[in-house]
C-alpha cells in the first residue's frame, strides 16, 4: 500500500487542489507550533530569570492558540469538501465505465460488489481525506520546520531528534515486514470467526428444521474462544510495531530533556532556548505517530479507492468506429463458428455456432438449459466478444462498427427485464425517448399489455407489476423502437397459452426479423424454423 496513490490525484481534480491547500495549512500550522514554543519559552524564562511582565506574551499566545484552532477547523472543512467532490467524481466515473464494460462483465458477484463499493465503500474515503492525508502532509512539513528551528538554538538537541526521527519509519517498516505473516494469520483467524458466526446466524432456520439449533450458542462460544487464543498470540507480535514507535519517540524526548538539562548546568545553554527545545521535541514526533494511527483508520478507504481503480483500469473491448451499419431490413445476419468463453470458466458457453437469419424471418433458438442460447443474443448485442468466429453483415464483421450504432439494429427483451423506477410509459420510452403517448399505447397493445395505464408506477425493480406484466412492458419497450431485429429471451414465460398466442401474432404483424430463445412447443411451432443451440449432453441440472 503506497502512502499516497498518484492515480487519485490524476483522476480527481479536487484531490489535487486539496493537497495544495493542505500543504499551505500544514506549513502555517508548523509555523504556529514553533511560534507558540518560542513564546512559551520566553514567557517562562522571563518570569523565572527576572520576574518580567507576561502581558505581551499572553496576548501573543492567545492569538497563536486561536490561529491553531482556526487552522484545524479550516483543514477539516477543506478535507470534507474535497472528499465530497472526489467521491462524486469517482462514483460517476466508475458507474459510467461499468456500464461501458457491459452487463456480462457486471454479472454475478461483481454487480453486488460494485453496488457496495459505490454506496458504502467510497464513504470510507472520508477518514482518508479528513485525517490521513492532512496528517501525511503535516508529517512531511512539521518535523522539518521544528528541527530546523531547534537547530538555531541547540544543535546537539536538534541532532538527537534528527538521528532518531528517521529511525521511526525504518523500525516500523522492519517490524511491519517481520510481523506481516502474524498479522495475516490474525486477520484470517478473525475472518474465520466472523464467517462462522454469519453462517450459523443466517443458517439458524435451517438448523432449527433439523433440531440442531439449540446446540449453537455453545458452539459459537467454543469456536470463538479457540480463535481468540490464536489471534491474541499473533497480536502480541503485531503490536510490537506501535510499541517500538511509542518507545522511540518518548525515549528520544527524554534524551533531549536530560541532555539539555545537563548542558544548562554547565552553562552552555540559556533557559529560554532549553525550554523551547523541550516544548518542540515532542512536536517533532507527534505527526509521525499520528500518521501511523490514521493509516490504519483509513485502510478501508484506500482499499475502496484501489477497487475503484481496478474497475477504471479495466480496458474497454476494442471496437471499430464505422457508423455505416448495413440495414438489417435488407441484409442477412450471419454467425460463423462463434465460440464464447466467459472469464474463469473452463468450458465454452457457446462453441462453433453457425447461424443465418434472413430479413423478416422468425427464428427460434432451442436447446437445453445452459447450452448458450442467451449467449447468442449477448454476442449480437456486443455484451461479450467471441473468442473465435465472427458475426457478419453485408460483408463486414460486426466489430468494425461503432457499438451504439450497431445496437440500433436490435431491440432486446431479456429473460429478466430490468425495469426502472418510474411509470410504465417511462420504461417503454427507454426504447425510444421521443415516442408519443399514442405510440407507447400502441406498443403496449401489441405486447398484450393494453390494460396497463401509461402513468402507472412500476415500483422498485418493477415490483408493483406481476412477473407477466413486467415481461410485457419489456416487450413493448422493444416494439416501440424502430430496430429491424427483435432479440427475445423467452418472451412468453409466465403467460398463459391464450396470451402467448396473442403475443406471437403481434410479433408476426410487425414484419420484423425475430430471433427468440424458446422452450415451449407452441412458441417454437410459431417460428419459421428452429435452430438447436449446443448438443452437449447435460447430466443433471
Amino acid at each position, binding site marked *: 500500500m503506497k502512502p499516497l496513490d498518484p492515480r487519485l490525484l490524476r483522476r480527481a481534480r479536487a484531490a489535487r487542489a486539496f493537497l495544495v491547500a493542505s500543504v499551505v495549512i500544514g506549513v502555517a500550522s508548523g509555523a504556529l507550533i514553533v511560534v507558540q514554543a518560542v513564546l512559551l519559552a520566553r514567557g517562562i524564562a522571563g518570569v523565572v530569570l527576572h520576574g518580567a511582565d507576561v502581558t505581551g506574551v499572553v496576548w501573543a499566545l492567545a492569538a497563536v492558540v486561536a490561529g491553531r484552532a482556526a487552522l484545524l477547523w479550516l483543514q477539516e472543512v477543506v478535507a470534507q469538501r474535497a472528499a465530497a467532490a472526489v467521491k462524486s467524481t469517482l462514483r460517476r466515473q466508475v458507474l459510467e465505465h461499468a*456500464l*461501458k464494460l457491459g452487463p456480462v462483465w457486471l454479472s454475478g458477484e461483481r454487480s453486488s460488489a460494485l453496488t457496495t463499493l459505490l454506496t458504502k465503500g467510497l464513504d470510507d474515503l472520508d477518514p482518508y481525506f479528513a485525517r490521513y492525508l492532512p496528517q501525511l502532509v503535516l508529517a512531511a512539513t512539521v518535523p522539518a520546520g521544528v528541527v530546523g528551528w531547534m537547530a538555531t538554538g541547540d544543535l546537539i538537541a536538534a541532532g538527537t531528534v534528527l538521528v532518531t526521527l528517521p529511525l521511526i519509519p525504518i523500525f516500523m517498516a522492519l517490524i511491519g515486514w517481520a510481523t506481516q505473516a502474524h498479522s495475516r494469520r490474525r486477520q484470517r483467524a478473525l475472518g474465520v470467526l466472523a464467517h462462522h458466526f454469519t453462517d450459523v446466524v443466517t443458517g439458524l432456520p435451517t438448523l*432449527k428444521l433439523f*433440531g440442531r439449533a439449540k446446540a449453537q450458542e455453545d458452539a459459537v462460544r467454543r469456536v470463538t474462544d479457540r480463535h481468540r487464543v490464536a489471534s491474541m498470540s499473533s497480536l*502480541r507480535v503485531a503490536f510490537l510495531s506501535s510499541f517500538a514507535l*511509542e518507545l522511540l519517540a518518548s525515549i528520544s524526548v527524554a534524551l533531549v530533556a536530560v541532555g539539555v538539562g545537563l548542558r544548562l548546568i554547565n552553562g552552555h545553554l540559556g533557559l529560554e532556548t532549553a525550554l523551547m527545545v523541550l*516544548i518542540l521535541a515532542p512536536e517533532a514526533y507527534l505527526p509521525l505517530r499520528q500518521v501511523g494511527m490514521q493509516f490504519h483508520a483509513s485502510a478501508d478507504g484506500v482499499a475502496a479507492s484501489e477497487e475503484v481503480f481496478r474497475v477504471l483500469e479495466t480496458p474497454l473491448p476494442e471496437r471499430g468506429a464505422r457508423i455505416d451499419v448495413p440495414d438489417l431490413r435488407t441484409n442477412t445476419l450471419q454467425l460463423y463458428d462463434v465460440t464464447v468463453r466467459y472469464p474463469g470458466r473452463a468450458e465454452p458457453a457457446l462453441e462453433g455456432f453457425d447461424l443465418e437469419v434472413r430479413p423478416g424471418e422468425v427464428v427460434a433458438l432451442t436447446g437445453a*438449459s445452459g447450452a448458450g442460447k442467451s449467449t447468442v443474443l449477448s454476442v449480437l448485442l456486443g455484451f461479450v466478444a467471441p473468442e473465435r468466429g465472427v458475426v457478419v453483415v453485408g460483408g463486414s464483421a460486426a466489430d468494425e462498427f461503432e457499438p451504439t450504432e450497431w445496437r440500433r439494429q436490435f431491440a432486446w427483451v431479456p429473460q429478466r427485464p430490468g425495469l426502472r423506477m418510474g411509470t410504465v410509459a417511462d420504461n417503454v420510452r427507454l426504447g425510444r425517448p421521443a415516442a408519443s403517448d399514442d405510440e407507447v399505447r400502441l406498443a403496449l397493445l401489441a405486447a398484450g399489455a393494453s390494460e396497463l395505464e401509461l402513468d402507472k408506477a412500476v415500483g422498485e425493480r418493477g415490483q408493483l407489476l406481476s412477473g407477466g406484466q413486467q415481461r410485457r412492458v419489456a416487450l413493448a419497450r422493444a416494439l416501440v423502437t424502430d430496430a429491424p431485429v427483435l432479440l427475445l429471451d423467452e418472451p412468453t414465460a409466465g403467460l398463459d397459452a391464450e396470451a402467448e398466442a396473442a403475443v406471437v401474432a403481434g410479433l408476426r404483424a410487425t414484419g420484423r426479423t425475430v430471433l427468440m430463445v424458446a*422452450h415451449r412447443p407452441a412458441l417454437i411451432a410459431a417460428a419459421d424454423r428452429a435452430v438447436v443451440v449446443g448438443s452437449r449432453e447435460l447430466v443433471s441440472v
Partner: protein
Amino acid sequence: MRGMKGWELVRPEGRVWWRLVLALVAGVAASGSAVALLATSAWLITTAAAQPPVLILLVPIVAVRAFGVGRGVFRYVERLAGHDAAYRVLGETRARITGRLERIAPGGLSGRRQGDLLARLVLDVDAVLDLWLRVLLPVAVAAVTAFATVVLLVLLLPTAGVAVAVAVLIACTIVPWLTAWTAARAERRIAGERGEVAAAATETLLTAGDIVAFNAVDDVMAAFSAHDDRLAAAERRSAWSAGLGGALLVLCVGGASIAGLVLGSTANITGAVFAVLVLTPLALADVLGGIPAAAQLVIRVRAALGRVQELVDAPEPVREPAMPVALPQGRGLEVKQLRVGYGEDDVLAGLSLDMPAGSRVVITGASGSGKSTLASVLLRFLEPRSGEVLLGGVDLASLEGDQVRSVVGLLTQESHVFDTTIRENLLLAKPGASDLRLWRALYLARLGVFVEGLPDGLDTMVGEHGARLSGGERQRLAFARLLLADRDVLVLDEPTEHLDEETGRALLADLFAAAGKRTVVLLTHRPDLVPAHARRQTMNLT
C-alpha cells in the same frame, strides 16, 4: 452506558471486567507517563538553569528516562489487555445473540429479506469491538489521567489547577457533545440524498443490460449525475461544522497553558513549579485528543447495537407448551379456520385445508398472499392467532416445535447451505448416517451423478452459501438433506423461485417422484411448472 440500548448484550462477564480494569490501569499509566515526562522535564530544566550541583538532579533525570520508557511499555500492555477483553466480550455477545435468535428465527423475524437482516446483524455486532476499544477504554483512560493531572496541579497552585480543571471539564463534556451533535446533524442532512444515490446506483447496475442494449447510457448517467450533485452539495454544506469539536479542544488546552502563565507569574512559587504549571497542560493535548473521534464513533456504535437489540427483542413467535403431549401416530394435517399474521395485519384469515397422509396439495398465490406464512405455521415457526392446525388429530400448539419438525420438513426458495463439505451439509439432517445413505439421498434428489463426477466427491467444499454450486444444484442438495432427514410431511415453499423455467420444471418433477408415500404440500406462484399428475388438489390463496 447501562441505559444504552443493547447494553445487556455487550455487558462483559465477571472475569472479563478484571482484564478491562488491567487495560484501564495500564492505559492511565501510559498516558500518565507522557504527562509526567513533560512535567518532570520542565522541572528538571528550570532547576538546572540555576546551575545547582548535579547530584540533586539525579532523581529527576532517572525519572525522566523511566517515564520515557514507561509510556511505550504500558501502552503495549494496555492494547494487549484491551483487545483480549474486547474479543472475549465479542464472543460472549455473539453466543448470547445466537441463543436469543434460536428462539425467534425465523417466525419472529417478519419481512421478506430475512437473509439481509441477519447479515446486517452480523456486521452490527462487530460494533462491540469499537465500543470497548475505541470509545469506552480511551475515554476512561483520558478522563482518569486528566483528573490525576488536575489534582497534581491543584496541589502546586490551586488557582491554576482550577483553571486547568475547567479546561478539562469542557474537553470531556462540551467537546464530545459538540462533535456528536455536528456529526448527527450532518448525517441527518445527508442521509436522504445518500439513500437516493445508493438507490440510483443499485438500479443502474441491476438494469445495466437494458440500459446498454437501448443505448441509454448517456441519459441514465445524466439522471444519476443530478442525484449525485445534490448529495455532494449536501456534503459540502455540512463540512462547515465538521472540525468545531477539535478546534475547541485546541482552545481548551492552549487556554489552560495561558492560565498557568498568567496565574503562576504573580504567585509565590519557585521557577521550576511555574514551568510545570505552564507546560503540563500541553501534554494533555495528546491525552484528550482521542475524545472527538470517540464521540463521533459513539453515534454509529449506538445505532448498530440499538438495531441488534431491536432484532433480538422481537417477541418469541411460538409459546412452547408447558406439558407437551406425545407425538401422535397419524400423519394427516388439517388446517381449521386459520388466522395468522404479523404486527397489526392478518396475512391469512379463515383458511381451512385438509391434507390426508400421503396426499399431494398445490397451494398457489401471488407473492405476499401468505404462502410462506402458512409454511411457517405448518412447521410451528409461527403461532396461529386463532383456529388450529392438527397433526394426526393433535393440535400443534400442544406439541413442542422440535417434535413437530421431526415429522414435518421444509424446502424453501433459499435453502441455506453451510460453507463446508457436501457430506457435512447432509449429516446435519442425520448425524452419523452412513455414506451409503448419503449417496442414496443424493441419487434420489438426482444429484448423485454430479457429486460422483466431482474430484473430491462428498468432501467437496460448497463455498459460502453454496456459491460453488449452481442454483439448481443447491436446491437439489437441500432436497437430498431433507430426504435424508426422512420427514413424513414435506412442505415445499417456492422451491423453483430462483431457477430458470426449464430447471425449475425438472426439479419439481423430481421432487414429486422422490417424495414417494410422503405428504407433499407445494406452495408456488408458478403452477404451470407443476407436473400434471400432482395438480389434482390445488387451492388458491388470495
